[in-house]
């Protein structure tokens, strides 16, 4: 396929300048062909796996694991849910039964066993949204993160402590003691606000009837800190 062009115009456009050296005499297209076609041949013969260096090195993953940078705290996630932050994409890696019984708002269900299926690749391998994996604890979500990270996917995170800790921290937070610092009260207030915003009143009423009265005096200050934190 490459030979006809070579013979065809090698004779043609250079006829005027016979005195100049050989490099200039060669038609630039032929020069380009001489360089690029063999390079293309090499690339065509190299096995695909070597060419596609998609995987992240194990050292790098180890470093990420030891720094715990894949974890997102329930408070951060809850804040994003309440803000309706479009960047957040919750991914439930539990089985579809468990997902149907209970799931966080806006979550999609990608069971851990399906995590490598091509069907979900567009969701997992993208650079627009923040994917947060969650499971009951954090083991399965962490496994999902590890598998996707090995594929070189970015922007995937793990909900710290999973749904168990979520229930404990967001749905059912322990009221802070009276001696706690202001931040504790702020966090508690924030969590309760999130919980009611997520439609968790039933849980709140049954379990948390007592907490509101004990600390009316601190309320105004709490609100101020809450607003600061929220913004």
């Amino acid at each position, binding site marked *: *396929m*490459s030979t*006809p*062009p070579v013979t*065809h*115009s090698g004779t043609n456009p250079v006829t005027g300048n016979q005195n100049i050296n050989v490099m200039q005499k060669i038609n630039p*297209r032929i020069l*380009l*062909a001489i360089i*690029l*076609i063999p*390079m*293309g*041949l090499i*690339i*065509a*013969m*190299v096995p*695909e796996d*070597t*060419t*596609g*260096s*998609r995987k992240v090195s194990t050292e790098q993953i180890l470093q990420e694991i030891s720094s715990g940078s894949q974890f997102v705290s329930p408070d951060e996630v809850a804040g994003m849910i309440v803000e309706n932050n479009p960047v957040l994409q919750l991914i439930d890696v539990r089985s579809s039964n468990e997902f149907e019984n209970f799931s966080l708002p806006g979550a999609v269900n990608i069971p851990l066993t399906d995590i490598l299926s091509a069907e979900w690749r*567009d969701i997992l391998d993208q*650079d627009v949204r923040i994917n947060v994996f969650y499971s009951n604890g954090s083991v399965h979500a962490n496994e999902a993160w590890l598998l996707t990270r090995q594929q*070189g996917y*970015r922007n995937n995170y793990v909900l710290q402590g999973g749904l168990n800790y979520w229930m404990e921290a967001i749905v059912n937070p322990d009221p802070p003691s009276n001696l706690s610092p202001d931040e504790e009260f702020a966090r508690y207030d924030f969590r309760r606000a999130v919980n009611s915003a997520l439609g968790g009143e039933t849980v709140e009423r049954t379990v948390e009837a007592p907490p509101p009265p004990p600390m009316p005096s601190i309320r105004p200050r709490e609100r101020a800190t809450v607003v600061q934190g929220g913004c």
Partner: protein
Amino acid sequence: MGPLIVYDAISSNTNLLLAFFIGIGFGFVLEQSGFSSSRKLAGMFYGYDTTVLKVFFTAAIVAMTGLLFFSLFGWMNLDVVYVNPTYLTSAIAGGVIMGAGFILGGFCPGTSFCAAAIGKIDAFVFIGGLFIGIFIFTEGYPLWEGFHNAGFMGSPRVNEMIGLSQGVFAFLLILAAFGMFWAGEWAERKFAGNYR
């Protein structure tokens, strides 16, 4: 390991600065290749001048070969290189509009700025039209939002869609490019007298 910005080898500000210099270099090469002349650009459609085809396809195959070799040497992770997502319907419609504008106006958007930089008045008029188009598109966006987002295909690569390895596809594309260069030069000779 590249891409530099993805792996935090450079900050996003450095990235913009590099883009600025590369942009100036790009404009300079465009101008020096004669792309500021709408006569030369329009020649592509009439067959008497196929510089556009040759310059852009040369750029494409050189960059492609370079990237594949960088990937082969482990210098560049192609999987994190941004690939523009495909919206099939708007890609086709946009191609038709852009092509018609190219024939009518004698410029494509990049070359119009290139020509404006050396003071071509027709380029300024073209850019005026370009901004009117942008204004109409953005102000009327709700009207064609559905159309604009139709046919979303993610970020497919042609070689994956036709089931070839990227290396083989690259090689075939190089051969196809040289085939087109040959056809282009044949056309230049054939139509040379008609339009100059």
